[in-house]
Structures are given as structure tokens and as C-alpha cells.
């Protein structure tokens, strides 16, 4: 078999007992294999959107290389009438456009799958148990795209037409999706591409006889919903959180978050009268600088944030410890990727749970929020700012590449109900009334002290911020009792935060003796896996999704209600499980089991189910 530089995300592992029904409606996955930089993204998004517009739940996963142009890339669209939007391992319908991987793309399919391919590749000679549809893309593109330079890009739209025809996707929806994708300003380009779609459809109509069972039929499950990337959603969350300072350094997969936010700030955060900015954005010289600036801004009273990925987090370590100890609000959004080092920069992982929760030297602990959907990216970004400012501490939001860079269906975003939380900040008037203040004194018994901002016009406003030992009055101190008092109060503050952070979501199945615990995007595989366990094995399984660290006490209660609890981790070292073990009693720890996946692809339900089935001895 021809070697490819990247292994496609599928295997033909259990092909033996696989039987396909005659008609498979709205429950299959389409994979388009192309070369990156060939403009296939547009064609893929149009295809996904067309299905979505037909009311069928979809999800799209882009598997791309760390490269600008010329390497293999796969885009998988899953249609699921039941609304499962996690990754599905098996590919049912492949569009093989990349000569370099075509052979492997087809060899990996299960019997009965379908393959549209570029005719000269003669993939039909490889197997006789698939439905093959050869399409002469080069011959078709010429007439619809006279400009030879554009042909490489337009060529991809042809498969949209072919696939739409074969699957029964409403062509009017394809047209609508395509024109939406190009926008008003690129109407001409849209027309050109529409010509290619039509050419593909016409060709399929005249030359391809449908033999496969896969069909898309209209449903009513997506009305009102959005399709959006998690990074865009998080950027919108920050916008509506009232962010005033963003500092960042480009890194996949977080760059598109910063870039989306920059676009929205420019659109919606210019003063209506003066046209001036109510925000500042700095592309810093490195991540040390971006966190340093964000901390300086937080200290001086801005709603400040930075976004990055693992390598950037590693560089921020010293500064985050300072912000923890000096008690400075700042929001860090970490769109996690596969590390250490460069690792697999375009693959997904929940690899920074541990490092973010305990980032920096000495005794440090930081709240971490775990959004699982665009909607939660939107709401939790806001919660992160409110928590950071109320608790005067760095707050992490752990997204991942799957959530950040893939397209997701989402409910429309709700307008924030709560006013912005600015925390315990004393003004000159407050100081006048109080006669002064002690920066690090626990006045309210919640561990959260009061602060003042530089520039407060009062002789008693100033205090000296330092990472070195200090007492209640922010005075330099190396005294043992001052140090212990200070860090004990920080621990108390963290306890207060425990009940203010987003609480877990638990779904108990009747008579379940097993439960699953997860964070973030693992939820999709976990939810589907619970259904698989009950449908295929007759085992009811409960699930609980953790939304924040420090952990809620209700997690322990969930564990008590089950005999065995599987903690699902998207990393080798079972980071979530380890963090739970730090807080739980030995009896509860004894009930925990581990399900781990760390191959860099979005977690799929079958992996979870298989692991549980084997550990349960079924």
C-alpha cells in the first residue's frame, strides 16, 4: 500500500460483521479528501450548510496538516437524525480528490461505502465491494471556468454538485449556502462557483447511476440554529463580556479567536460619536509579553485577556504565579492542541487541564472553565471575566482545537442577563468614607480583599504590588506568619470560588450502576456512548459533565450514586482523573476508572464505549 504522510482518521477494524441496510437516511458521514490550500474549505462548508439548511443535524470536522499548501487534508461531515454531533469513526461516503491519499482513503472504507473520485485515479480497480462514482473533474472544470488560474479552486465546487445529486440534497439549499458563504461582495465569484456546482450536478444526472443507500431527506431539527466555530463564539463572548484589552501572540489553534475578536471590536466597539476605540488590542512580541501586558492592564482596571495554546501557556507560567499571588484579574483562553513542544499543532487534545489548574511555581491554583459548545464558549467567556474581576485572580478557559476551529451547530446566543461584575474596587469617595484600606485584608470573610486602581485621586488609594512576601497592608514582609496568613487566605478565596463557578451538569439514568464523567468536547462522545451502552449492551449509564475547576461537591455525590465511574480524558495521563483524585476521599477514588484517548482526533463514542465494555468485562 502506498505510504501517505498522514494517516486518515479511520480504520476498517471491524469490517467482518458489517451489514448495511438498503436505505440509510440522514445517518452517515461524508469525508472529503483534498489537498490543503486548494480552496476545498469553501466547498466543504457549502456542503455542510446545505444539509443543515435541510433541517438535518450536522457537524463538520476539518483534519488539516500544519502547513499552508500542498498537504493532505480531510473534511468530515456527519449527518445524524438523532443529533449526535461527535466524530464518527467510520466513513460512509468518501470524495477522493487527493491522488496522494486516494488509494488509502478507499482501502480504509467498510464494504458498502461509496466513493466519488477523480476519474483518472481509477480507484474502482482497487475493490469490488464499494459503490464507485468516477467524475472527470478536469474535463468538467474547463468549460465553466475559462480563467485557468482559478480552476484549481473552482474544481472543488464540482463535487458539491455531484454529491448533492447522489444524496438528494436540495440544490436550492446548495445555492443558498454558496451565496451566503461568498457574501454580497463576492457575487461574481459565487456565480462562477455556482456554475461548477451545476456542472457537477448535470454530469451526475447524466452519467452516474445511484447504487448506494445513502440519502439526505428534509427534517425539522435545525430551525433557528447557528453554525459557528467555537473560536468565533468565544470571541463574541469576550465582546459581550465588555473586554477592553486583548493582548495575544499568534498560535494555532487560538489565532482565529483573537482575529475574530479584533474584527468584532472594530465593528461594534468604536465610540458612536468620536469613532474612537473603547478597546485596545496588542499583538505582543511573545506570550510572556502578552500575559505581562494583560496583567498590567488587569492591575490598572481593564477587563483584560489573552488567548493562546499550550506552548504559550508554558511561557506564561511565571507571570501567572505573580498574578495569583499579587491578586490581579486576567482571563486566559487556552485553545488546547497536542503537545509538548510543537507536538501536533493542528490536532486536538485536552492536554492542559493539569498545567493550567496549577500553573507556576510555589502554591498556586487557578480556576479553569471547560466550555463544551459554542454557546458555552459565549457564556463562559463572560463568566470568566466576572470571576476574574470578582476574585482578582487569573481565570483559564480551556477550549480545544476541535471546539475552537470546527464548525458546530449552536443555539442562538442569549443576551447576557447579569450586569458586568467589576468586583471589589474602591473609589476615591469610598476611601474618603472609610479613611483608607488594607489591600490584602479579608474584610468580608470570603477571602476576597478590596483593591484600588492606579489613577484614583486620593492620597490613601495607593498600595505597592509585588510578588514578594507581603502583609495585609501590601507591605514587604518575610515573616513566617504573614506568609502563611496570606496563602491561607488565598486558599479560602479559592473555596469561595468553588460554589460560584459553573456547576456540573448531571444526567442520571434510571438504575444505572455506572457513570461517566467528562469535560468540554468529550461530552458528545460520552452522550452518544451512553446511548450505545444502553442500546447495544442493555447497560444504563449516567453521565456528569464538569464545567469548572475547583470541582463542585456534587461530583462526589454523583460518584456515590454509582458503583463504577469512568472518567473520560483526551490525554494519555488521565489528567482529569488525577485532578479528581486530589480532592476525593479514598472510597470515592476507589470507584473511579479511566477512559483515555490521545490520538489527536476528536473523541468518538465508539472509543469510549469499547473501553467501558472491555473494562466491564462484557
Amino acid at each position, binding site marked *: 500500500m502506498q505510504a501517505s504522510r498522514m494517516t486518515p482518521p479511520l480504520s476498517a477494524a471491524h469490517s467482518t460483521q458489517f451489514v448495511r441496510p438498503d436505505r440509510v437516511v440522514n445517518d452517515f458521514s461524508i469525508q472529503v479528501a483534498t489537498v490543503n490550500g486548494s480552496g476545498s474549505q469553501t466547498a466543504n462548508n457549502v456542503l455542510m450548510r446545505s444539509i443543515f439548511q435541510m433541517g438535518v443535524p450536522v457537524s463538520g470536522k476539518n483534519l488539516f496538516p500544519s502547513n499552508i499548501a500542498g498537504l493532505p487534508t480531510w473534511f468530515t461531515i456527519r449527518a445524524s437524525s438523532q443529533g449526535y454531533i461527535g466524530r464518527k469513526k467510520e466513513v460512509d461516503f468518501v470524495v477522493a480528490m487527493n491522488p496522494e491519499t486516494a488509494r488509502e482513503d478507499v482501502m480504509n472504507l467498510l464494504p458498502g461505502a461509496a466513493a466519488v473520485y477523480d476519474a483518472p485515479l481509477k480507484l474502482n480497480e482497487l475493490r469490488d465491494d464499494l459503490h464507485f462514482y468516477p467524475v472527470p473533474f478536469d474535463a468538467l472544470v474547463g468549460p465553466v471556468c475559462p480563467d485557468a488560474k482559478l480552476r484549481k479552486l473552482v474544481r472543488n465546487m464540482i463535487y458539491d454538485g455531484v454529491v448533492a445529486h447522489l444524496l438528494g440534497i436540495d440544490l436550492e439549499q446548495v445555492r443558498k449556502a454558496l451565496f451566503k458563504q461568498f457574501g454580497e461582495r463576492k457575487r461574481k465569484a459565487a456565480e462562477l462557483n455556482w456554475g461548477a456546482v451545476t456542472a457537477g450536478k448535470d454530469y451526475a444526472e447524466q452519467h452516474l447511476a445511484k447504487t448506494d443507500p445513502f440519502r439526505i431527506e428534509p427534517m425539522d431539527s435545525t430551525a433557528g*440554529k*447557528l*453554525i*459557528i466555530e467555537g473560536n468565533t463564539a468565544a470571541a463574541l463572548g469576550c*465582546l*459581550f463580556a*465588555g473586554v*477592553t*484589552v486583548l*493582548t495575544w501572540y499568534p498560535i494555532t489553534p487560538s489565532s482565529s479567536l483573537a482575529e475574530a475578536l479584533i474584527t468584532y471590536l472594530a465593528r*461594534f*466597539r468604536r*465610540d458612536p460619536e*468620536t469613532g*474612537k476605540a*473603547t*478597546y*485596545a488590542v*496588542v499583538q*505582543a*512580541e*511573545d506570550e*510572556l*509579553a*502578552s*500575559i*505581562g*501586558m*494583560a*496583567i*498590567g*492592564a488587569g*492591575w*490598572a*482596571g*481593564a*477587563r*483584560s485577556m489573552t488567548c493562546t495554546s499550550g506552548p504559550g501557556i508554558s511561557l506564561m507560567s*511565571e507571570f501567572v504565579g*505573580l498574578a495569583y499571588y*499579587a491578586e490581579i484579574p486576567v482571563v486566559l483562553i487556552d485553545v488546547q492542541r497536542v503537545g509538548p513542544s510543537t507536538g501536533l499543532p493542528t490536532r486536538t487534545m485536552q492536554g492542559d487541564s493539569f498545567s493550567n489548574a496549577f500553573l507556576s511555581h510555589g502554591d498556586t491554583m487557578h480556576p479553569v472553565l471547560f466550555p463544551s459548545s459554542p454557546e458555552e464558549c459565549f457564556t463562559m467567556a463572560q463568566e470568566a471575566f466576572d470571576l476574574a474581576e470578582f476574585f482578582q485572580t487569573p481565570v483559564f478557559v480551556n477550549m480545544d482545537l476541535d471546539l475552537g476551529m470546527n464548525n458546530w451547530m*449552536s443555539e*442562538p*446566543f442569549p443576551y447576557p442577563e447579569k*450586569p*458586568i461584575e467589576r468586583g471589589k474596587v474602591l473609589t476615591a469617595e469610598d476611601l474618603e468614607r472609610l479613611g483608607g484600606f488594607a489591600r490584602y485584608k479579608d474584610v468580608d470573610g470570603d477571602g476576597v480583599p478590596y483593591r484600588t*486602581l*492606579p*489613577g484614583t*485621586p486620593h*492620597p490613601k*488609594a*495607593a*498600595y*505597592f*504590588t*509585588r*510578588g*514578594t512576601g507581603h502583609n495585609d497592608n501590601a507591605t*514587604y514582609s518575610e515573616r513566617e506568619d504573614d506568609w502563611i496568613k496570606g496563602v491561607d487566605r488565598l486558599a479560602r478565596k479559592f473555596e469561595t470560588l468553588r460554589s460560584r463557578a459553573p456547576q456540573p451538569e448531571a444526567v442520571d439514568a434510571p438504575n444505572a450502576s455506572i457513570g461517566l464523567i467528562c469535560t468540554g468536547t468529550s461530552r458528545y462522545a460520552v452522550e452518544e456512548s451512553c446511548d450505545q451502552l444502553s442500546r447495544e449492551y442493555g447497560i444504563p449509564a449516567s453521565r456528569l459533565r464538569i464545567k469548572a475547576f475547583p470541582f463542585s461537591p456534587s461530583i462526589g455525590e454523583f460518584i456515590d450514586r454509582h458503583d463504577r465511574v469512568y472518567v473520560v480524558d483526551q490525554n494519555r495521563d488521565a489528567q482529569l482523573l488525577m485532578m479528581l483524585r486530589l480532592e476525593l476521599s479514598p472510597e470515592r477514588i476507589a470507584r473511579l476508572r479511566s477512559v483515555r484517548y490521545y490520538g489527536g482526533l476528536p473523541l468518538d463514542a465508539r472509543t469510549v464505549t469499547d473501553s467501558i465494555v472491555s473494562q466491564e468485562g462484557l
Partner: protein
Amino acid sequence: MSAAPSLPKKLNRAGLEIIPYRGSKTTLCAGCGHNSITERLIEAFWELGVEPWRVAKLSGIGCSSKTPAYFLSQSHGFNAVHGRAPTVATGTLLANHQLMCVVVSGDGDTASIGIGHFMHMLRRNVPLIYVIENNGVYGLTKGQFSATADLGSKLKTGTVNQLHPVDCCLAGIEMGATYIARSFSGDKRQLSAILKGAIAHNGLSIIDVISPCVTFNDHEGSTKSYAWMKDHDEPLHEVDFVPSFEDISVEIEEGESRVVRLHDGSRLLLHKLERDYDPSNKIHALEVLHEAERRNEVLTGVIYVDRNRPNFTEMLDLVDQPLATLPEARVRPTRAVLDQINEEFR
């Protein structure tokens, strides 16, 4: 016994005594150059009547970086991490561009661990006063060479520096700072005038002050010692500062002095010594620094001033009110905006 009439206290323009301009007692070694710089900062801010609450003081880590605790007790201070005060100060100004920011740094801080941030602060022309307390060694970690140590200078242990020094003034001119001066902690008059000029300047001021470390770098063979400076300090000019609020008409003799008008209307008077020096000529500024280096001299004075380049917060085109205190209505878009955005993704 009748009470003796108390002497009237001396007040500055802001109606304040000098006390709030002082800080806590220094914990540095007696005779450390850094202490003299602290004194000059206290004087400069007091004499110009800057209200302390308008100032934010920041620093990295080192003996030098401790000094913000020793002046301006009524200003917010931030002793951050080693080498990275430029980033924290930049962030501070993003949140509140109305603050006057003064950063105190060491040569280790600036020219080694923090040189990346230093360079980018220069490029951005961040509007702040950046004082480098330059002693050629790491004081706080007990006397290792820093990157500003001169070629051939000797440590107490006898180790000779073989590496080329980083010249922060040269870097400042090349990379875009807009007020660049070098001085000596022992030259009260010059340093005071230079600091006042920096307070009046709108943009990034880099003030590289040779500041002897009496404990680790004041011996024979050091090029940052009091003795060395006595013999090698080569002032470009004599500097006087005339604040905007002093309505003094200054008699200038043709060809004898240059007047540099600063942002707030203050003036720097540069009195000619051996030659006439024009601090607005960038190429010339670079030339005299290189020349001085070749002659083993420490050139001091106001080396370069650029009054035209916009500073970083100006480039960001911020609203007048500090971002830090903008009310919710100005930072959270309306429900209609969210509806519009939701619609765009349907």
C-alpha cells in the same frame, strides 16, 4: 511658655509637601548609586508638582527594581518579574493612558532577560519614563557581569569581560524611543534636569544612568565605578530645565545654547560645551555615541529627542476616558447587535 511659631512648610504647585513624594526607607547598600537616582526622582516629581496619584511606578527584579518602594508613596507601584516590566507598564497604559508611568530597571533586567521586551517597547514608543540603573553587574544576585559591562572591565574576582556591551541608548535611538539620555547617578544637576525633561516629554524616554554598585563593581578595573566616572564622564552639554509654569524668558546667547521645546511647553536648555550639539539629528546622535565608545568616554546628556513620532496609546486611537473605568453601556454592545450577529450565522 508660648509656642514657637512653626515654620511655614514648603509646598509645591500641587500644594503638597515633599513627604508624599518620598517612599519607605531604602534597604539598598549605603553609597549605592541607585539611592541617588531615587533622590533625583523624588525631587523632579515634587518640583514639577506632579500629583502622586497620577503616577504609576513599575519595575522588574533587582536592587534597582526595589527602588519604586522608596519614592512616591502615594502612587501605585508594581514590582513585577525580572526583565518584563515593559510589558506590565504597557498593559497599565492600555488600561489607563492618562497615567504617567515611570519604570525603574536594572541593566540585567533590561539588557539580558528583558531585552526582547525592551526592544519592542522602543518600537512602540510606549509613553513612559524608563530609567535604567546601570551598574554593569547583577547587584541582587551578587555581582555577576551584566550585558552592559564594558569590554575589558574586571569583576572583583578578577574575571575580565570579553563580550561586547549592549548600549541601551544606541538601541533606543535605532528602535524608536523619542527621548534618549545618559547620565551619572553622581551628577545631581544633570540627572535632575534630564528627568524633568522626561516627565514633560510625550513618548518613551530612555534614561540610562551609570549607577555604581559599591558592593560589587566599584573597584579598580571596573568601568562603572565612581572613580571611572570621575575621569571618563564626558557631558555633551550642560542641561537646564525650564518648566512650562515658570514664566521665565530665558536669555540665550546666539550659538551658545539650544532650546528644546517639550510637549507641555517646558523647555530644555542645552548649553554648549566643546561643540554645538543638535539632539534632533538621529545620525549624529548615533555617531557621537560610537565615537565616545571608541575614545573610552561615557557621553552624558540629552542625546536624542524626537517630538513628532506618535506614541503607542495615540496609535491605538483610544477614547479619552481610561478603558479601565468605561461604564457597561460603553463596553457591552446592545441586544440588537447580538440579534444581528446571531442572524449572520443562521
